[in-house]
């Protein structure tokens, strides 16, 4: 028990260190550049304490729960040897985690209001809602597909460069033909898809799979799933934009 407490304390200290840059930046700009007093300092201190505590718990639980389950599932699937089930799982994981992602819901809503004010869709609530939902499902489908491709890549041992470079070429080509109002949203949608819980799980899945399959290097083959998951949404959102207009 005592030792566990020591580990926890060490993690707490690490979280404090992680947060220090933010505190310094905010303090510097508030006092030196804007030259304003700090508003409701009590609230801020409480909030900072919560952030430190939260980060500590998160990292603690990550190594206890999220990483082991991701890897054990990858190993179980590798042992089972059924590629189709593995790919189904990969798609569900990508689709399921993205469709409910709060950041994506927020961006989709904002994008809908951009489209409405730009006259691309009619300015009714129903039209905006259907547009936002369409965007969400497009992105979720793209992420699901990306994880499937990524898992297939780990199994076959394709080098990631070619996939990513091919994706870049597609993005550039699509940028030329897609309507210009979708481009900013499309580029951003790549970044917002990967949430704090998805990233550790998907990373553990890739690394676990690469270490379970003979001849794969977990460093070279295990990473790269997230890169694909942030590339495909750009392409698919641009396609969505073209279909809509």
């Amino acid at each position, binding site marked *: 028990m005592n030792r566990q407490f020591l580990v926890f304390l060490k993690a707490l200290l690490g979280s404090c260190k992680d947060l220090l*840059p*933010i505190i310094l*930046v*905010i303090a*510097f*700009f508030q006092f030196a*550049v*804007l030259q*304003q007093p700090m508003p409701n300092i009590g609230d801020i*201190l409480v*909030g*900072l304490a*919560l*952030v430190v505590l*939260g980060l*500590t*718990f998160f*990292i*603690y*639980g990550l*190594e*206890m*729960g*999220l*990483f*082991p*389950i991701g890897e*054990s*599932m990858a190993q179980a699937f590798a042992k089972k040897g059924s590629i189709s*089930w593995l790919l189904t799982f990969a798609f569900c*994981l990508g689709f399921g*985690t993205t469709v*409910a*992602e709060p950041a994506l819901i927020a961006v989709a809503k904002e994008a809908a209001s951009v489209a409405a*004010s730009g006259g691309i869709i009619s300015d009714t609530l129903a039209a905006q809602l259907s547009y936002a939902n369409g965007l969400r499902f497009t992105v979720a489908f793209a992420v699901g597909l990306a994880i499937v491709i990524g898992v297939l890549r780990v199994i076959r041992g394709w080098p990631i*460069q070619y996939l990513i*470079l091919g994706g*870049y070429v597609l993005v*550039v080509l699509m*940028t030329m033909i897609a309507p210009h*109002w979708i481009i*900013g949203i499309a*580029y*951003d949608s*790549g*970044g*917002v898809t*990967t949430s704090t*819980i998805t*990233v*550790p799980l998907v*990373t553990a899945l890739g690394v676990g799979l690469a270490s379970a399959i003979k001849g794969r290097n977990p*460093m*070279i083959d*295990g*990473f790269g799933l*997230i*890169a694909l*998951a*942030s590339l495909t949404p750009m392409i698919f959102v641009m396609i969505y934009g073209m279909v809509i207009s």
Partner: protein
Amino acid sequence: MALLLEFLTTLKNTVIDVLPILSIILGFQLLVIRKPIPHIKQVGFGFIYVLIGLALFLLGLEKALFPLGKMMAKQLTAPEFIHAGEQVLTNVHWSDYTWVYIFAAAIGFSTTIAEPSLIAVAIKAEEVSGGAINANNLRISVAIGVAIGIALGSYRIVVGHPIHYYIISGYVVVVIQTFFCPKLIVPLAYDSGGVTTSTVTVPLVAALGLGLASTIPGRSPLIDGFGLIAFASLFPIIAVMAYAQLTQAKARQAERYGEKRKRIKINKRSLQPKKQESSKNPIQDKKNR
């Protein structure tokens, strides 16, 4: 008491967010794999810790960092601060916004250091590479990449260039670097682009973009406000590969230096050269193996 209530609400929302993931995992574990989860108790506790941690983290952000960061972004982009009382804004010069770029870089760097998903990936990378990739160095390189990306992205909003020129030239740099970079780091570098932009960075950066786009004449917040996230996920790729290239170059230099010293030693004492010095850089070392 009010704090506790807020915490419970955040916790409930976090649980709802995690529910689809949990049901997928359980569904596949029970129906397809059909084996009990190994160390179920430990994994369960780990999950609970993650949930509590995330809820606390989000609540703390909501209470302390977001309001402050958003307020500062607003103040720094406000015309009163930049033009010191000049009321009529006709044309803006990009150099008026120097503090904005510095703030963008600083907030990009510091939020990335605290980003939980990046910490997760860095831990995994250090573990998998057997310590060859240092988690802290990786996080610092990613953070530098985000800082440059967001500063450049704010510059783009100020001058109003179309986004795809920047992103496409960034892609070209990535492609060129991929050819010269140690192969071991490439997938990790690509991944680091996607992980940087999550819970902490996105809301703050979005506030900055929105503040900029709504105060500069001729920019629409709805169109120009987007795009900063794309910058923040492209530049870490370049930064991580550059970090790998730097360590590789340093290792080569150290090797060359080592050889020179050996030669001098041999000349001086005409002794047998000792066991060959191992390379300083583990990444390079692994590659040679």
